[in-house]
């Protein structure tokens, strides 16, 4: 597949606005501001069938159409680019942020125009310290060239863009916790409804999208819905960044069509498992997604197919485990992460996830009790869908899948 999102990866010259422009950058912004109406852009994004790539896969065009019109809700309206990428196994947005900052800016101005937003924020994961100056410089250059600010390129559209660095909390990637954090408050996810479209940042109309989701928008507008839908298989369309990590020969970010076969992704593109070990299990979409056994890996990588298989596409962050990996240890590490990152609001998540961590630790140390395994499953029942945000689910889903599919390994930890 011809590189789209990844065309500038590993070449730092495209961080500079002139090089980016020489390669056709900001051309789509110019033509969009001149030739397209906001509703038309939203319709195009809908027609393309673009789905959010921050994990939940919500149809992007539909989400945009929930934002009330300027006539209904004048005043400040916000577009937020979610660049808090912290889900273990996920490092695709980081590549876009590192190598193509102007693509992100161009995408945000276009998307902001489509929803008549006047202010944009890039919410950057706190630990991405090396990316901060890259984005800062790109924003400054975009202002200099008139791609940001008042009356962009002589149009009536004005858009201010700010970079906001997080302070190192995974939970601030959850869109409403992100908004609280942007408001200067503790990153607690909000109760929904109301949703950000109507009551977002400072209770104003707001849309939050993932970096990769936004970056696809200029390409859809430029090359057309037909082009976008020509990539992929019968289940899902468009280009997609996949992250390969774990026991794989060539870990990294790969741009391939939506719906690629998981086995093909691991063995052809990733080069297979090092040291001729056998594949044992794969987490297909980031650490919160239920694990697949090796036998379940002959599957199309898309939202619907993975959901049908009882897992999730998530962020397409494929974590590969070979026969030598202890599933108890792997699950312990994942659960420890969610216990550490729980914001601590909801009783089941605050108390339950740490408790699961403690049980897993005992199982890992061979100090498990016979009742522990069923207790873990019961706790998943009582955490899943019992909380304000999806972190509770994110913590419970891996536990349920690991314990059910690899129960024999957990039983070995019983005293």
């Amino acid at each position: 597949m011809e590189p789209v999102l990844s065309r500038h990866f590993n070449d730092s010259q495209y961080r500079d606005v002139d090089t980016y422009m020489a390669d056709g950058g900001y051309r789509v912004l110019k033509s969009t501001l001149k030739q397209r109406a906001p509703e038309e852009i939203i319709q195009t994004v809908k027609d393309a069938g673009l789905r959010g790539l921050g994990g939940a896969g919500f149809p992007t065009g539909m989400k945009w159409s929930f934002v009330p019109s300027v006539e209904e809700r004048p005043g400040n309206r916000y577009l937020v680019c979610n660049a808090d990428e912290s889900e273990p196994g996920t490092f695709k947005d980081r590549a876009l942020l590192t190598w193509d900052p102007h693509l992100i800016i161009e995408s945000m101005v276009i998307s902001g125009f489509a929803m008549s937003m006047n202010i944009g924020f890039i919410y950057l994961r706190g630990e991405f310290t090396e990316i901060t100056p890259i984005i800062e410089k790109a924003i400054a250059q975009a202002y200099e060239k008139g791609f940001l600010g008042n009356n962009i390129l002589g149009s009536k559209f004005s858009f201010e863009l700010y970079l906001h660095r997080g302070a190192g909390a995974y939970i601030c990637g959850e869109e409403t916790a992100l908004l609280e954090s942007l408001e200067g408050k503790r990153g607690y996810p909000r109760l929904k409804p109301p949703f950000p479209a109507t009551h977002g940042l400072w209770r104003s109309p707001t849309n939050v999208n993932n970096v990769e989701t936004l970056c696809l928008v200029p390409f859809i507008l430029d090359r057309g819905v037909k082009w976008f839908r020509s990539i992929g298989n019968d289940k899902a369309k468009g280009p997609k960044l996949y992250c390969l990590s774990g026991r794989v020969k060539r870990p990294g970010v790969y741009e391939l069509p939506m719906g690629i076969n998981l086995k093909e992704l691991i063995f052809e593109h990733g080069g297979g498992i090092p040291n001729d070990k056998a594949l044992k299990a794969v987490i297909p979409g980031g650490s919160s997604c239920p694990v697949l056994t090796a036998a379940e890996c002959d599957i199309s990588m898309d939202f619907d197919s993975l959901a049908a298989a009882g897992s999730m596409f998530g962020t397409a962050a494929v974590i590969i485990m070979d026969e030598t990996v202890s599933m108890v240890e792997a699950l312990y590490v994942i659960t420890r992460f969610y216990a550490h990152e729980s914001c601590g609001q909801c009783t089941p998540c605050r108390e339950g996830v740490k408790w699961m961590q403690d049980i897993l630790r005992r199982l890992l140390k061979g100090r498990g009790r016979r009742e522990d395994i069923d207790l873990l499953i019961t706790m998943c029942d009582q955490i899943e869908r019992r909380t304000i945000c999806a972190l509770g689910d994110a913590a419970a889903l891996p536990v349920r899948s690991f314990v059910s599919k690899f129960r024999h390994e957990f039983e070995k930890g019983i005293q």
Partner: protein
Amino acid sequence: MNPEISVKIDDKEIKTAPGVNLIDLAKEHGIEIPHYCYHPALAVAGNCRICFVEVEGMPHPQIACNTPVRDGMVVRTKSELAVEARKWTLEFLLANHPLDCPVCDKAGECDLQNYAFKYGRSHTDFVEKKRTPATVRLSDKLMLEKDRCIVCLRCVQFLRDVDGKEELYVHQRGNSAEIATAPGKDLESDYQLNTADICPVGALSPTNFRFAERVWNLEKRESICPLCPRGCNTKIDIKDNVVQRVVPRFNKEVNSYWMCDEGRSYFSKYHTNRRRIEGFWHRGEPIDAASFFVSVARRLQQEAATDILVLVSNWLCNEDIQAIADFVDGSLSAATISGPPFKEGGDHLLRRWDFGPNARGLRDIFKGRFHEPNKLKQSFKLALSFGVTPSKDLNIDELIYLGAYMEPFIANTLYVAPGVAHGEIHGSYTNFAGVVQSFDTFLEAPVQAHTCEEFIGKLLPLLEHR
């Protein structure tokens, strides 16, 4: 939209308006839905997850505190799904709880204890090491037992949203989350003890009640706070004729769910340990009651009424003030009437600056006859004071005083009679906004103490004999 919709909660068909919060509706109809974080005067936080109910059509339990009712909604508070979800919320809450009810002041009125008994499991699956964070002092008034805290955030919300002071916040994250003040800072709020009232568990405790009493040993009464003319409605806990604790009682119009910290310490600061006037006195010498009234009557008759100043306290109830007004009208109609000065204004929440509960009732009853003390320029031969310590600016030769507490001036006062204190009488106060609130007796007065009505009752027949 149809103003009347039907909702079914358990077996009850209820007609209501759309959008009403399910938890409020249930309560209104006598159906208990347990709750910790939800408080009717605070924004919905939705974090504790104890208020789970089953809503037909929803596969997962829903929190009642964040469920606006819809027409045709069918809610089950006792279905297996709801019961099991609540049980597990309690299991999670109790996992790290110290279970130290025997030494916890909240025991007996603790919702963790109550709900655990009513809705919880009878055993636990938790065998891990408990979290044991330390107990900390938040201010001179308040302690926080972090291991009992369920992080419901009521305290944080109250200070931030009701009092407007961001003095408490959540420190750390996840299982380590704890309530804290800014490093090195004490709570400064004048309303901080409200957080101890609304803390659903024993995490926050007022230092003045810590380890003092077991709540079930206290006699429970209701009253009105006398400290300022707001007149916050209160609940009073008593043991051995001593007020042990004062907490606010809900009154939508007057004080909502709150009261100020100062009002709670009214008894300990201004009453309990003060020496009372127990008998009758004549210039520092004891005198018997009969001689007292005869002498006072004689003295009052000796002076021309125009030379007499009647001082009436704003601490008296309307009924006493009325009795004084009637007495003056009948027997001393030419006397001048005054009382303590009035201090205007108040703080941002409840507290009014005037000291005492009934400045408004006092002025409402006497109307134009009441002279503001700062405008009184003439001198008087005799003052008859019902509870007012005469200020130095007043020009009076002699004083007859009916009052509750010993004061230095009493040693030189012509005649002194023992009066009753707040708590020892029943009656009503008119608050600063004109709300008349009645209250009952809850303390026993000293044997010889007289209310103004009683005092006048004994004096009147002697005066009529003139």
